[in-house]
């Protein structure tokens, strides 16, 4: 019974990692850029939600939707104005650029909102339900349900909508997509905006658990483990990878005595390194995208 309880908590935190990892994967598939600022965009999402819901007193759902919209528009212009200039530079330049952007966001957040820890009330805060002796908090439930809803929405979007198909085409082959009349630059900016929106969703869902401060941007680094484990470039892989990382972290935290002290904090990074050494393709990658020496 304790094990199942752990699994549920692990799945809930894993869903957050999965959502952030999903943002990496969408951008990576399209532009072969890794956005090291994904965690900082998540943090911005949480802060905007705090401003809208906590300070302006908006209704939770309205505030949620507005936050996602604001961050998505922000993501669009982030690509269109800044990141696009770096195309064609070596991978190192994009890594440094997005790290620099992350620092700017974090600095901005701590100047504008301050370095205190904030919280805002949600319909889920503090409520729990009992099921066969299992204790499930509404917050965890909201994260799992939110992720499931978002995933199915994205699935339908990428499968059936015209823009979604155009996005997949541009990710597959930019030049061919451009010849087919797809506005590739615009589509890439849209992908950035979706990815930022997904990060904002994760930020708002996470806010009741970790509360809102600048340190939650560190989630982005753990989400790398999820993305790599799932095979960078696979959307279901990102979510599954995230859930595995979440569960591993919970298990390591509980059985710390049997392993070694402090294993919980670094378990995600250990999984990441092991995946890269043993099976760098990841679990769900359809083709070998990692060049081997």
């Amino acid at each position, binding site marked *: 019974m304790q094990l199942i309880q752990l699994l549920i908590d692990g799945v809930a935190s894993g869903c957050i990692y999965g959502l952030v990892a999903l943002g990496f994967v969408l951008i*990576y598939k399209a*532009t*072969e850029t*890794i956005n090291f600022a994904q965690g900082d965009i998540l943090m911005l999402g949480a802060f905007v939600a705090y401003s809208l819901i906590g300070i302006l007193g908006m209704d939770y759902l309205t505030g949620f939707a507005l936050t996602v919209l604001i961050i998505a528009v922000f993501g669009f212009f982030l690509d269109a104005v*800044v990141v696009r*200039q*770096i*195309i*064609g*530079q*070596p*991978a*190192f*330049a994009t*890594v*440094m*650029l997005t*790290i*620099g*952007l*992350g*620092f*700017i*966001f*974090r*600095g*901005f*957040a*701590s*100047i504008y909102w301050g*370095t205190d820890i904030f919280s805002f009330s949600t319909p889920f805060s503090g409520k729990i339900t009992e099921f066969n002796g299992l204790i499930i908090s509404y917050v965890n439930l909201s994260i799992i349900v939110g992720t499931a809803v978002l995933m199915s929405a994205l699935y339908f979007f990428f499968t059936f909508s015209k823009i979604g198909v155009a996005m997949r085409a541009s990710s597959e082959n*930019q030049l061919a997509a451009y010849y087919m009349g797809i506005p590739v630059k615009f589509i890439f900016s849209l992908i950035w905006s979706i990815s930022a929106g997904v990060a904002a969703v994760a930020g708002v869902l996470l806010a009741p658990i970790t509360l809102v401060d*600048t340190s939650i941007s560190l989630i982005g*680094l753990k989400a*790398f*483990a999820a993305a*790599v484990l799932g095979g*960078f470039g696979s959307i279901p892989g990102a979510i599954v990878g995230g859930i595995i990382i979440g569960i591993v972290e919970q298990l390591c935290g509980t059985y710390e005595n049997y392993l*070694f*002290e*402090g294993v919980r*904090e*670094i378990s995600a*990074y*250990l999984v*990441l*390194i092991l995946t*890269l*050494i043993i099976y*760098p393709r990841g679990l769900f990658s359809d083709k*070998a*995208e*990692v*060049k*081997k*020496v």
Partner: protein
Amino acid sequence: MRFIFKTKYSQDINIAKHNGDRFWYSLLILIMAALPLVLDDFYLGEISYICILSIAGIGLMILSGYTGLASLGHAAFLGVGAYTHAFLLTNGIPFYASIPIVIVVSFLVGAAIGIPILRLTGMYLAIATLALGFIAEHVFIKWEHFTGGNRGLPVPQPEFLGMSFYDSVFFYYVCLVFLIAAMFAAINILRSPTGRAFVAIRDSEIAAQSLGVNLGLYKALSFAISGAFTGLAGALLAHYIGYLAPDIFNIFLSLTLLLLIVVGGMGSLHGTVFGAIFVGFLPQLIAICRDYLPSSIGSQPGLEPMLFGLILVFFILYEPLGIYGRWMKIKLFFQLFPTYKRQTFKKQKVFTKSDRV
């Protein structure tokens, strides 16, 4: 404009290309050696710190600037160097014996980390080194027998050549001598076949491989050499800060090192010194900025990371070759004086490069 008439192949790899170089660099060394006559202890301390940063910068420059491998966890090597040095000194090993051991240990640690993760390229390598940096920081906290954990580890300041490390003039000379030695070592590595193999790997792995460069070997070697330089810098840094705590060697320090080489200029050893001067004076620069901004913004703690990020983004977007690149352009302007063409350094149109196969 100076044209060098080459009559021997060896002129291509000479350290000093012409007598002007010899004159200016000798003058620079003389001025650096004479500095303690005019500067007081505070500035000597700052310049010693810049020398240490330069040595660490050389290490990262060999890896990132010359071999093209990004490392986001290089503070780990500084930590390995610093803790090994402090541990050896505490156990009574003299300074002149400890430094070579530190260099060998960091070299081996670099190789041990390098061999498994260097099958990865580009982004994956950046992520893996980032994770390794976190794991290393964690090891520094938890391995209390060796590092003292969160309590920290005091660094003994032994006598060396009959002088004490508390004497800032003596410490300045130690740092300066190590910087000059490290610079010479780096120049010589980079003009040897090994260094040329590094540059070949950076420019095109496939081309390098077809010319017979063993990619795995040379990448691991680059990681190990880079680790050795950074470990040496860590040992000197241990003397500079005097008391080691694990949170010194965090990701922010790794990113500061990256800022150093990006601002200084990727792929040039001059750049490491320019970058180290910039990073060394960055806190003062931020303090000056604080005075000029309205106090509501100027007193915020978030200002530092924000400026850090802005500088990084600015250099990546507008001056990818850093301060050294700008210096080259200014120099060329005066060399060609009336005939300088603006188009010489115009950004060329580039397209996405794909890592996919």
